[in-house]
């Protein structure tokens, strides 16, 4: 559900071969429209209709009373007004942005670093690393969350055990209690899950790097640093941009990790990101009008970020 969904699942990268379509059948025929009909109807029903309804909802006072049958009241921009003046929304937004940038940055750094390193490993070690990355990539989100919770478990977790062995006293240390350490755990999990996609994609791009070009640069006296800067990175720049953008978009909407860790003992108020805030406001708290307004805000934020991605994909499409 990459999109709306699936993206939930990280592995779902909208990665797809997009050769220029050779549309030979120029004949005027209604056939393609018939073929698109099921998709258009399906998406219209499951995404388009809710979107319209959500915009409407965001202009209404729709709380618990309405849930029990009272007609909703039109309040114009009141929901947006009270949200924009509410310090908490800005706290959550800022928190989401910082979390997103830290996670996307770390993921890119580790993923690209690993991809570059893979070129210098012995074949055996490289295969080992690739197998390991595939395993981490293939793990279902919820399963990896349970394992990481178990690793960070207060009483019997391996992390506390190892840290205590190393001399720090972490016996009975609770990782989820304080927001900063909560986000540390969340970051570890998110980055662990996201690095494989970046490493594989960038490594694949690196394999297309021309050896002659590198050799020529070397003969001309370029050291490893300048070869990286002037030959390697420019070649893989388009891939880096697309992958980096995807990370930002994905990490801005992280929900499952935060939600499950909150349920496992974090304080929701101190750790809410945009996604969990919308959920807790609406489905948790019955404030549907307000949560619809936050959701619209989040959609706007995503569209802003998505524009360059769409442009990049279309440029590929044209080429």
């Amino acid at each position: 559900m990459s999109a709306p969904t699936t993206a939930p699942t990280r592995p779902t990268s909208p990665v797809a071969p997009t050769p220029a379509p050779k549309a030979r059948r120029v004949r005027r025929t209604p056939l393609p429209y018939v073929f698109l009909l099921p998709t258009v109807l399906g998406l219209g029903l499951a995404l388009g209709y809710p979107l319209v309804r959500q915009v409407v909802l965001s202009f209404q006072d729709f709380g618990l009373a309405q849930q029990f049958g009272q007609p909703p009241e039109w309040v114009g921009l009141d929901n947006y007004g009270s949200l924009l003046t509410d310090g908490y929304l800005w706290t959550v937004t800022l928190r989401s942005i910082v979390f997103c940038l830290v996670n996307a940055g770390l993921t890119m750094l580790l993923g690209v670093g690993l991809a570059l390193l893979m070129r210098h490993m012995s074949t055996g070690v490289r295969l080992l690393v690739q197998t390991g990355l595939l395993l981490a990539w293939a793990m279902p989100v919820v399963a990896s969350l349970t394992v990481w919770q178990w690793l960070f478990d207060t009483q019997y977790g391996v992390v506390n055990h190892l840290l205590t062995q190393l001399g720090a006293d972490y016996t009975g240390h609770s990782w989820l209690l304080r927001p900063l350490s909560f986000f540390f755990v969340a970051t570890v999990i998110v980055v662990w899950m996201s690095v494989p996609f970046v490493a594989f994609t960038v490594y694949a791009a690196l394999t297309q790097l021309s050896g002659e070009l590198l050799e020529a640069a070397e003969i001309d006296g370029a050291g490893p640093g300048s070869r990286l800067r002037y030959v390697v990175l420019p070649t893989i720049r388009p891939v880096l941009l697309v992958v980096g953008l995807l990370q930002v978009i994905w990490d801005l909407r992280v929900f499952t990790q935060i939600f499950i860790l909150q349920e496992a003992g974090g304080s929701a108020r101190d750790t809410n990101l945009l996604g969990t805030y919308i959920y807790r406001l609406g489905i948790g708290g019955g404030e549907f009008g307000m949560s619809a307004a936050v959701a619209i805000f989040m959609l706007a934020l995503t569209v802003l970020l998505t524009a360059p991605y769409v442009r990049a994909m279309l440029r590929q499409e044209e080429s």
Partner: protein
Amino acid sequence: MSRTASRPTRIAANGLGLVAFVVATFPVYWMVNSSFLARNEIRSPTPTWVPFGGSLDNYRTVFATDQFLDALKISLMVTGGTILVALLFAFVAAVAVSRFRFKGRMSFVVTLLVIQMIPVEGLFISQYKMLETFELLNTVAGLTLVYVASVLPFTIWTLRGFVAGVPYELEEAAMIDGCSRTQAFFRVTLPLLAPGLVATGVFGFIQAWNEFTLALVVMTREDQRTLPLWLSTFTDVNRGTDWGGIMAGSSLIAVPVIIFFLAVQGRMVSGLTAGAVKG
């Protein structure tokens, strides 16, 4: 990659590679390891690193409760329904987009790309309200509906690459040999597309099987849980978490996914980068 790295570089790269391997695999290993440990080994101040003499008790616990099997049933129905519908819809749409030139084609492709980026969290409130109106909350049909919408854009996007990969000349040749256009498509193109359809279907399966957020929103009743929901409610701080049982459950959910994923991943990933580097 033709150049051989200098010895110290290689040793450093190999060393860091081994570290990366351990960090990447350890959680997966730990899940499987813990799933075979007895309760007293789990609840012990020193971890048991290898499950020698392990037991299947945790797996027995999982299967002993109806909840796991109920959730498995729901998950299978939802993922099965999602893949069938999504593949069918996506297949015809992919043929339209890659075999025909028509007005609106480009806007359709752009819309797909944009939709694919919409976060679930941005719409699940009103999807919840919608399903509530349709009386589809806590039903397989309701969850399938929102799942189809979420896998469809990706599925079309991928399939159309596979369709475009089969040269139209092959169909033309078949038509010259006397096939009708429809026959040519079904006898020539479709068989060549089979691997792509399978790979895309498996990918859709993985997504739906793993999905958490929409399931959480749509399936609020305990008896309508999917496997990920069932697993997430297992960790309850107040009850004293049964980590062995959870790890057994996690392994049961993860292992089929890992196998499927390894089978199709190469096919799915190669595209983007190839195109992007060329551009």
